[in-house]
């Protein structure tokens, strides 16, 4: 697991996302309204929906497939149901976004 430089912070739309792929791994980088950037595995634990396409609300994202709500900070499902996705460490240096994969 090492940090990769992936993009500028402005490359991620506010309350939107970017996908980062490394081999078979796919992470979704989210930029929240407060400016922070968080990254989780880009597959909903419910049926594998692309969380990157979900609506961001507070610290959560709502899966576009069946409305599962996932906490971006720790990857846990807030409901309905239970479960979790992986989270990835993110750091921001100047304008650059780095992710640990």
């Amino acid at each position, binding site marked *: 697991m090492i940090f990769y430089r992936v993009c500028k912070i402005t490359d991620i739309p506010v309350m939107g996302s970017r996908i980062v792929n490394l081999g078979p791994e796919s992470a979704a980088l989210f930029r929240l309204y407060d400016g922070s950037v968080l990254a989780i595995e880009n597959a909903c634990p419910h049926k594998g929906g692309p969380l990157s396409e979900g*609506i961001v609300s507070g610290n959560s994202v709502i899966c576009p497939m069946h409305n599962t709500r996932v906490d971006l900070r720790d990857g846990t499902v807030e409901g309905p149901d239970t479960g979790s996705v992986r989270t990835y460490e993110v750091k921001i240096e100047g304008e650059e976004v780095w992710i640990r994969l």
Partner: protein
Amino acid sequence: MNAKTMERTEKRLVMIGNGMAGMKAIEEILKLAPSTYDITIFGADRHPNYNRVLLSRVLAGEMAAKDITLNNEDWYRERGITLHLGKEVSEIWRGQRRVVASGGVYADYDRLVIATGSSAVILNIPGQELENVLTFRDISDCERIKEASRRFKRAAVIGGGLLGLEAAGGLVDLGMDVTVIHDQMHLMNMQLDKTAGEMLKASLEKRGIKFRLSTITTEILGDGSVGGLRFSDGSAIGCDVVIQAVGIRPNKTLAERANLYCNRGVVVNDYMQTLTDPSIYAVGECTEHRGKTYGLIAPLFEQARILAYHITGHGFKSYRGSVVSSKLKVSGVDVFSAGELKGASPEDEIYYTDRGGGVYKKLVLRDGKVSGAILFGDTNDCTRFFQMMQDEVDVRGERPALLFGNPMSGDTGHSGPASISMMAPSTVVCGCNGVTKKEIVDSIAEGGLTTRHDVTKKTKAGGSCGGCIPLIEELLVSVLGSSFMQRTKGEPICDCAELTHEEVKKEIRTSRLTTVRRAMEVMGWKGEGCGTCRPAINYYVQMTWPGEAKDDPFSRHVNERLHANIQKEGTFSVIPRIYGGAATPDELMRLAGTAKKYNVRAVKITGGQRIALLGIRKEDLRSVWGELGMKSGYAYAKALRTVKTCVGNDWCRFGTQDSMGLGITLEKILEGVLTPAKVKLSVSGCPRNCAESSIKDLGIVGIEGGWEVYIAGCAGVKARVSDLLCAVSGREEVIEIAMAYLEFYREDARYGERTSAWVKRVGLERIKKSVVDDAGERRRLKERMDECLRKRKEDPWEGPDSEEVFSAPIEITPYGGP
């Protein structure tokens, strides 16, 4: 006085009373603004806050006192609340803003909440001092009654109202011989009419309860302890225990001593502030609002929420009184009552009576709307009727069928039998998510859930197509009793705000709000909004301020953001417009060529007479659209979808009108208009109706010499056959009516509400009036639609959509950079 309040950084909130209404207010305040107040609570009782609604279950021995505790002492501690239990407040010193309680305890306040509740009314008759003369109001009463039932056999309950009958039911379950004495002609006379009261009496008599109606008690007899009751006609009965349940009286003495204006209760304004002192609020059974006092839980919770909103500075919502409903909680007896008991004239009442079967239903109408309901023996429809009352649905068109079950539940094979009590625990209620009746009932009972939203959040039931929502609501009522229907007038838009769709729309108009973010700021939204409210606000601002409002792509579902439907494995579908379902060979060749070039996984003729290319990757969407050179079919949007047509009189030997021509014209006029939910049209050339106009949001049928216009049909989860709006002679009239109708729908319906649900809610008559009968109103509606069409955005497949929503994944290689 504790140290914390001395060195305060927060404002000090003191509450007198530790009951359900007050604690609901505290919970709401903590939810809205956890750190605004430093909170101190005085409770005269030694018991922590408990669920008074379930007292009769404790009496019946079905639950223990600890089972109905709502907040234990840890709860207060964890939230930093100072709790003084067993301390009765004796003085409010308004000048110093201080309350003084027994034992010299006091607390200073910036805001004070009086939540002192109510007490049982004690009859002014001799014998009150005797042992075993009891009331039925709190846990201590329950304990005393249970204790008495172990030693004695005969009980008398004075009062045949809700509380008296619940007490009587509990006493019978404890094995006592019970007589209920009521001074009126029939039982529950505040909630029931004569017929229902008589049927209730017969049913309770079967359970072993005896009655003395139209009987006034004049004396409690006995020597030291109760021996009997004497009545005004001179007769008497023997009994060992007397329970007085003749009513409740707001506890207002403390407020009166502090010179706060009181009438029957502590008088409050629409924000739950006392009239005399705006820094003092009152909530619950001790209050009087607009001349009314309330004793049922739902209105008290409503008051608590309003109080919380106001006291934390989210001052949008005001309390305007409640429609109350009540349901008797005696096992084996189903009684529901809400609103008015009697119509202004016999024409305003609808009955169903089956004395043999023990079922009685009565609806009271006022101005074509349900204003009251009494249900006995079969209360399955209570939620539906209560909702109709709160939403003020016009039911004139439905009179013949009103009393005969809910057409919206259980008619699609999604939800099984309409009567939930007959449903087996393993029956699937929510077909989309596979949730059974048992799972829902357990989540309500064990999870302490009280709203449909909570159930959906916990179990997923009702979260997808929504077809089972009426059933979930019935399950809630059956588990909790109707007193837990916490709905205010119209449902709040979501958990992020207490405002209804109508209030949000109004505010967007009056305050000229043109962005989602600004609208949420002005309306005091909690947090950033969610996947329910943000798309709704995004629609409302654009509907209200066409051309001026700014669309927020990140307040849209992915389908609308990317102008394509997401499929189960994360790819997308592309469905271009094929006007009226009539394609040209060129279009078909381009479709085929594109499908081959991008190696699409499937080509499907859709249900709306169009062609879908399936399995397109997000990053290919824009080049596929470019290749096709066709317009977006909006198959992903809450907008005009498809206009289905038959071939019409150009080709068909039965055709009387040019259905294809009109369909294509309508589709070209209306494409790109945003609507609250998807809108499907069809035009058939003759009454054989091959384009299925009877199940479309707007269905047009050609007849000899004119057209019939049908509205509000739907073939989806809740199938509904359309209603005839009007018949007109010319094509131009059809177009004008279509435009006026859809504009009315755009402005009036709630976001996400199909025309079928909308017309069912507001009534066909109202739409007819504006769109058909009133030519001036129709013209104005059409003009507003024209304006919206002038200002609509260009086709999203051609438009300069921002790069950011279509960005490709960032590919990185191990040990390299991006």
